[in-house]
């Protein structure tokens, strides 16, 4: 089993979001970066499958040099080697082009990633990569078992889920509960330092350009209703908020 896991390096879920340079750049000051939480599920499942079936797990990050701490953590969790495409991933098509270019050089049985990154939330890179490689893509996958060359999966759909079978190779966008998040142990952290990390340069160009960022308008004060008059809420929702 040869698995490629694509990971993002993203601001921690509790990070304060702000912008600099006239609202044209994300303000990295004081922000901790983590592996995308969905990517973390994908990586954990990949490591479990490797432990069960043998094979290799390669981590791929499209990102700048400061995402290497996230890559090292993925290696500490159990990936064997890593590739970083040296650029800022700003556009879905461009990012998918990098992944498809790397993937086309090897015969991966599975290309796993999170269902979406938590910075741009588009959830389209797996589909783009599948199309670029001419293989099926599925997301969000919440269960994945491998039986020979067949993958048996459960995918979340609106209001439920569906069971799916397909032959490898596949591109999958993952989410919980596909696996439990793994925490690296001391031995993992030590060996991660010497595992190979290859840096390559990007190809192609962005199809979209972000001009500026804005923050949502601040929320007004919360109108409190005393518990003994709770019923008043319903009247307010109707006459004042006009949502009923």
């Amino acid at each position, binding site marked *: 089993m040869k698995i490629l896991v694509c990971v993002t390096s993203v601001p921690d879920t*509790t990070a304060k979001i702000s912008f600099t340079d006239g609202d044209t750049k994300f303000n990295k000051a004081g922000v901790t970066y983590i592996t995308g939480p969905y990517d973390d599920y994908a990586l954990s499942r990949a490591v479990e499958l490797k432990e069960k079936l043998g094979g290799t797990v390669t981590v791929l990050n499209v990102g700048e040099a400061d995402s290497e701490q996230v890559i090292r953590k993925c290696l500490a969790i159990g990936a064997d080697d890593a590739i970083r495409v040296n650029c800022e991933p700003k556009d879905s*098509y461009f990012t998918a082009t990098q992944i498809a270019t790397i993937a086309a050089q090897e015969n991966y049985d599975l290309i796993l990633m999170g269902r979406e990154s938590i910075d741009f939330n588009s959830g389209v890179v797996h589909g783009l990569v599948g199309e670029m490689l001419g293989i099926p893509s599925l997301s969000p996958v919440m269960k994945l078992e491998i039986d020979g060359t067949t993958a048996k999966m459960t995918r979340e759909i609106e209001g439920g889920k569906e069971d799916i079978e397909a032959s490898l190779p596949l591109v999958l966008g993952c989410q919980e509960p596909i696996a439990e998040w793994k925490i690296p142990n001391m031995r993992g952290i030590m060996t991660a330092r010497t595992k190979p990390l290859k840096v390559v340069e990007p190809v192609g160009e962005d199809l*979209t350009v972000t001009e500026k*960022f804005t923050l949502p308008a601040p929320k007004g004060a919360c109108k409190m209703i005393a518990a003994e008059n709770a019923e008043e809420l319903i009247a307010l929702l109707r006459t004042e908020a006009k949502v009923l």
Partner: protein
Amino acid sequence: MSVIIFTEIDNGALKKSSLEAVYYGVEVAKMKGSTATVLAIGEASEAELAKAGSFGATKVLHANDARLATGNIQAYSDVLASAVAQEGSEVVILAKSSLGDAVAARLAGKLKASIVSNVTELPDLSGGFKVTRSIYTGKAFATVEMKSDKKIIAIKKNAVSVVESGASASVESFSPALKDSDFAVKVTGTHKASSSISLPEADLVVSAGRGLKGPENWGIVEDLANALGAATACSKPVSDLDWRPHHEHVGQTGIKVSPNLYIAAGISGAIQHLAGVNSSKVIVVINKDPEAPFFKAADYGIVGDVFDILPRLTKAVKAL
């Protein structure tokens, strides 16, 4: 240089979010001085599809091959690509959904199209083609210029305020050739909650957290939801504990919702929970702890016990 709108059919009817996309697409076409075509895939009556006219559409292409009965990502994206080719479309519009995202992504790969998701308002065509999208799970917005000839836009709920006209659209059958390779992925079973209102589509949502103490107490949540005609949702620990199904989990790692009304009962309001619900128009928080962080993100708040408050709200709704 027309606009095409990809719509989804659920139980024989066009989804509400898809009809919003139709309206959005027709508005974009008007801005560009061109025409809009709707593509609908799957089983639905002509009368049902003609309703797209009330949202501004004049023409609906209906692909209804038996093999397209279940949402098949590859086949749907091929059908959409054929429709784009036939109509000479430059812009593709759809409502964000797990199927829509997947189909749109593959289409972008085929067309070398720029693709922007979570778009929150109509584009600005005054200098180039610019859209605004929600990023950082609702914590910010980005204005993005789409540079390629072909453009794909996936809109978020409430991206446009819809005005229905009552008109009807003409429906044409559309039967592009399908490839066997499109059906390599086999759906072997579907598990769907039968009667409940779809959470991503819902205008009203009643959500509950660990404050409900256990799954056996969800009756009071469902009662209020039923009285309102709302969908039910929950926090992550609630679905992790299997108190509620996973597809009800909202937040950073769950479904992102933007309903008109989000009622949160017994949920503390952790930043990861807020991330999935902060673009709701009106937020109501019911929590016994006056210090619960959720009150800071709320429009209306009640400090009280959910076991007392929820049944009383249900009664008040029924009395309307």
